[in-house]
């Protein structure tokens, strides 16, 4: 029995590490590409590791990068569990950030201790609003959420461009001919507390705390039960007395809220103002998409999303360092990231197969009914 337990836990550990092995395999392909480009792969991966973990600053950068991924990933855990696909993290993040920033700009004299929580709340509300729209469109008008969230991203970007070059523009810029589309810097008293001397700010702590809360929400509360039920079976949910449409709206709304919060944290923790280069990515850093990937690697489990987000944060931060050290085009990094995503998601298959096999072995042991041995038996029928 003890032996069985031991092998069980070993095998579970192997499963947990599987994504890491898959990522390594992807990096090996990346190494080949580096070779073709005339760079030394060992040096390159040294740089990657160094960039992600090599110093307090790089470690902090990794965590800072992981923070919005985790927050958005949490929202994704909620919406995907409710079987609504939220591709709109980018837009929701922007709207949350805009609302939080507007609040911070409107009341520059408020004490930080008051403003910071309110601004986070504003981000939450802004994102919820932007997520709630496609939610309501899906629930009440049958508009596919994949389509609407993609469209809402584009709309949010234009809204940001408009606000930052018009109503919300930094008065200093407004007076200039070039008019850089940015807001004024938020009052320094609103800066999220930092772990001096790095960029690591309170946001990371908030995100981890929220991961635990989302876990509780999903598996320990009736709200979570409802969302998961609707996600798995709408008919049975109706039978259980659950208002299905409301859960669809709620799932997208909450999902958007976390993205909005990520936006607010990004502004108050890192940028301290909003600025646009016309695209979503300039501000979000693709967190709206990478967060989905992180959540799925975390098996749509909020706690599992923590290491997944950290892993991706490290990859992204380390990759930039790789560019700096090796002077390889940034395009190579994007390519390798793509490979990592494909490899890791493909590795799931082995995990599932192993899980099934474990189950079979376990049951056989419990049953005490020794199974016929297929290895020994003559395999006669096509398999």
């Amino acid at each position, binding site marked *: 029995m003890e032996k069985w337990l031991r092998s069980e836990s070993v095998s579970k550990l192997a499963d947990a590490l599987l994504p890491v092995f898959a990522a390594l395999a992807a990096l090996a392909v990346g190494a080949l590409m580096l070779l073709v480009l005339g760079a030394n792969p060992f040096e390159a991966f*040294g*740089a990657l590791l*160094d*960039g992600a973990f*090599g*110093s307090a*600053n*790089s470690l902090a*950068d990794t965590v*800072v*990068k992981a923070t919005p991924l985790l927050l958005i990933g949490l929202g994704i855990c909620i919406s995907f569990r409710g079987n609504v696909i939220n591709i709109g993290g980018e837009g929701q993040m922007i709207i949350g950030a805009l609302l939080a920033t507007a609040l911070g700009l409107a009341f520059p004299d408020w004490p930080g201790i008051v403003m910071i929580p309110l601004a986070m709340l504003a981000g939450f509300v802004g994102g919820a609003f932007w997520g709630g729209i496609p939610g309501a469109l899906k629930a009440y008008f049958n508009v596919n959420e994949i389509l609407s969230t993609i469209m809402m991203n584009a709309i949010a*970007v*234009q809204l940001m*461009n408009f606000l930052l*070059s018009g109503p919300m523009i930094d008065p*200093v810029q407004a007076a*200039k*001919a*070039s*008019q*850089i*589309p*940015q807001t004024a*810097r938020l009052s320094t008293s609103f800066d999220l507390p930092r772990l001096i*001397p790095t*960029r690591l700010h309170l946001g990371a702590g908030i995100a981890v705390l929220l991961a635990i809360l989302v876990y509780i929400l999903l598996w320990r509360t009736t709200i979570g039960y409802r969302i998961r039920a609707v996600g798995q079976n709408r008919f049975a949910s109706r039978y259980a007395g659950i208002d299905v449409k409301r859960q669809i709206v709620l799932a997208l709304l909450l999902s958007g809220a976390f993205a909005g919060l990520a936006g607010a944290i*990004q502004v108050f923790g*890192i*940028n*301290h*103002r909003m*600025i*646009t*280069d*016309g*695209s979503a*990515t*300039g*501000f979000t*850093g*693709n967190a709206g998409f990478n967060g989905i990937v992180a959540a799925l690697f975390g098996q749509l489990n909020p706690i599992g999303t923590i290491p997944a987000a950290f892993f991706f944060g490290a990859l*992204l*931060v380390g990759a*930039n*360092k790789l*560019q*700096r*050290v090796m*002077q390889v*085009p*940034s*395009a190579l990094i994007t390519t390798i990231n793509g490979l990592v995503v494909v490899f890791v998601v493909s590795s799931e298959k082995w995990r599932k197969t192993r899980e099934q096999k474990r189950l079979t072995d376990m049951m056989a042991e419990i049953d005490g009914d020794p199974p016929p041995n297929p290895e020994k038996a003559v395999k006669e029928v096509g398999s």
Partner: protein
Amino acid sequence: GGAENEATVVEVPADIFKVAVVMPSAINDLAFSQSMYDALLAIQADTGADSFEIVYSEGMFIVDDAAAAIRDYASQGFDLVIAHGSQYGSSLQEIAPDFLETSFAWGTTVDTFGLPNIFAYEARAEEGGYVNGVMATMLSESAVIGVVGPIETGDAKLYVDGFAVGAAATDAGTEVNTNWIGSFSDVALASEAAQTHIGAGADVLTGTAQMVVGAIGAAEENGALWFGTQSSQSSLAPSIVVANQVYRWEVVLEDMIDLIHGGTYGGQSFEITLANGGLVIEFNGDYALPADVQSAADATIAGIIDGSISVFP
């Protein structure tokens, strides 16, 4: 690893000048980023590769990543770290005070945040815009000119505004239509915008930022003329590109480098202008420019240089 890098830094002989640049798009975008990279290469060609080292981070459109890169370069002891994008200002303001021995340059802007180790640099893009506007108006037979821009801001806005002023000053009756397509990368939409201008009667076009390569193609296909800016775009469509306003950042970079050698790490702001040779109107040799237009252009350039023409009065 990092320790190794730092070790190398210490051993570097003092006569090697190390520059790092962080740019939003690619070094070969035929536009904003390329203009800076070309300038650094020009300086390197002058001083020799063994006394002038260039490293770059391109594609840093994520502000956050740029900040990490800037900090990393600074901590590695680079002599000059260039943040080539107005969106990097906030990050720089935060990082610079931690590295008072490193000089930073930030463009395009005039703001040094009052810090002793930040240089600001800007292109008076409206000057070349004005000159191009004058020529475009003279060349337009339909009296309709189309402009394709990314978003209405910064360098692009200066250029486009200057262009409009130049056009109006030449012939108030000429219509200048502007399209902001909302993106720096949507080549297809830029092309369609150009087609729209042509459909609206434009026979001369201009535009700014890297996605205009799409617009140039559309102009060429329809036989409309093109005016470029930031980098030379003549190679893309030799038959229709009339002239380009080309940025020569080396003019101000050299000044900065001199100051750094003299112990001044920042606190000043620079601009490239027609007057200081940082902006150059480069005429496309393959395009036969009518003499009157050529002389009007020359006169305008001279006027801007001597101050008799003020683009934004």
